[in-house]
């Protein structure tokens, strides 16, 4: 009877689900050792949450890519609150990230044009000016200064606010709400829902103001798409605005911080950039691959709408799969010596921006901001160093990304 089944299937049937999530990893520079172990021995493995709900973890880069691009895996089906997840799943419902084609396609088409490589390149000089201004102001401060408040947060906030047409001086107001929206399962779900509601009210007010006085920005363009062509509902408009605002700065700001913390840990890589600043674009790609932006490191869950063969394992219809991007980026099938940071690598087929229809909309914008940020810091603050031991860095509790309260630096 067993002879007819594939070996991997038999092993999976007889192996118990792994308890999930895993304990905090011993190092912020590498994925949990449990994830590496799974990638080597059980690349498609069943997990179980404390409350008994089960799902699957995909850890190899090929399998993760399949979960993200195979049409049989649905994001919309994963909005069900019973789907096991440890991230802000509920907030994805109603947002573009929680939709499948064709609903997803309809909304994505409305914004894709604003984020193409061509449009982003046109913004580069403006971003370079912002970087230099922020560094000018930083240099006036006593040392150690806080890089979060003085650089890594204001840069992407300013950029996305200008793009969207959100007044940047409202930053302190919406930043707390934005943090709560990105809370993980350890947080009270009420908090995230409340914060989302605050952001919705804020955007409703902003949209009303722009209807009265249109600007030359993406939000105005989206309002026109609604009012003139009925291409999206009022609710979709509000939620899209929130999604772009939150996604547009949280991840980039935290990536800037984590890039610097990581380069500080591997100083010969920083020296390499100081010596050859033309290598910064490749360095940004390698840091995208290497940096552990979140502890769990998984993208939003997908649900199989029919039975799917994933890496030789039969995923039943209705099962949830977590594509673990961080460990997929450390797959030896993707790069040799994957756990070594090498800023000269420049591999752009990492999975940090995802893949498939939900591939990060802002990827080119993020790349450009990160390149300009690193260029500014490497060339103007070549002696930049973190002024606190890594073990003493204070990460905010309960967020799906590693978000620092402050990053004290000296130059």
């Amino acid at each position, binding site marked *: 009877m067993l002879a007819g089944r594939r070996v991997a299937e038999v092993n999976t049937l007889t192996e118990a689900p792994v308890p999930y999530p895993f304990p905090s990893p011993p190092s912020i520079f590498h994925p949990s050792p449990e994830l590496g172990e799974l990638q080597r021995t059980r690349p498609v493995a069943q997990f179980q949450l404390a409350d008994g709900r089960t799902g699957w973890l995909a850890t190899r880069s090929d399998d993760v*890519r399949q979960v993200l691009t195979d049409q049989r895996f649905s994001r919309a089906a994963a909005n069900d609150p019973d789907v096991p997840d440890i991230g802000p799943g509920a907030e994805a419902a109603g947002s573009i990230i929680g939709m499948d084609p064709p609903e997803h396609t309809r909304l*994505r088409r409305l914004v894709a044009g604003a984020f*193409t490589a061509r449009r982003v390149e046109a913004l580069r000089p403006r971003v370079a000016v912002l970087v230099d201004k922020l560094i000018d102001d930083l240099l006036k401060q006593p040392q150690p200064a806080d890089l979060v408040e003085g650089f890594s947060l204001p840069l992407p906030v300013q950029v996305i606010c200008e793009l969207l047409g959100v007044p940047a001086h409202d930053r302190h107001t919406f930043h707390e709400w934005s943090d709560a929206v990105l809370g993980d399962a350890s947080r009270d779900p009420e908090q995230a829902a409340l914060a989302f509601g605050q952001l919705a009210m804020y955007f409703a007010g902003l949209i009303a103001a722009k209807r009265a006085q249109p600007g030359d920005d993406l939000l105005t363009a989206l309002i026109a798409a609604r009012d003139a062509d009925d291409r999206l509902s009022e609710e979709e408009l509000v939620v899209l605005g929130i999604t772009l605002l939150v996604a547009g700065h949280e991840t980039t700001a935290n990536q800037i911080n984590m890039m610097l913390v990581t380069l500080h840990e591997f100083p010969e890589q920083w020296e390499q950039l100081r010596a050859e600043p033309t290598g910064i674009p490749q360095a940004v790609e390698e840091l995208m691959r290497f940096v552990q932006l979140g502890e769990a490191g998984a993208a939003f869950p997908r649900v199989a709408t029919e039975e799917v063969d994933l890496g030789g394992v039969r995923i039943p219809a209705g099962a949830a799969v977590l594509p673990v991007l961080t460990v997929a980026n450390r797959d030896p099938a993707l790069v040799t010596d994957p756990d070594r940071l090498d800023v000269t690598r420049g591999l752009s087929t990492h999975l940090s921006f995802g*893949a498939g229809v939900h591939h990060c*909309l802002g990827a080119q914008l993020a790349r450009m901001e990160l390149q300009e940020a690193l260029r500014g810091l490497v060339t103007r603050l070549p002696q930049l160093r973190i002024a606190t031991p890594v073990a003493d860095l204070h990460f905010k509790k309960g967020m799906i990304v590693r978000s620092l309260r402050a990053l004290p630096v000296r130059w």
Partner: protein
Amino acid sequence: MVTDQPRWRVHVGEACIAAGSCLALAPHRFTRGADGRSHPTDTVFKADDAVLDAAASCPMEAITVSHAQTGEPIAP
């Protein structure tokens, strides 16, 4: 013999960064090559809206669609 549906030509340029949006939107029209990049399964085919969606979704605007006979550009 006259065909009622126009035939299009599609090309994926060097700018492709393997984001994979096209593969997900039009899996019958694009495949992933050994280099990780996207390649059209057929360079000429019957008009297909899914390919327009794919072209619109490409972050690099690497996908170009044109009329097969005249070369007149259709997308992006």
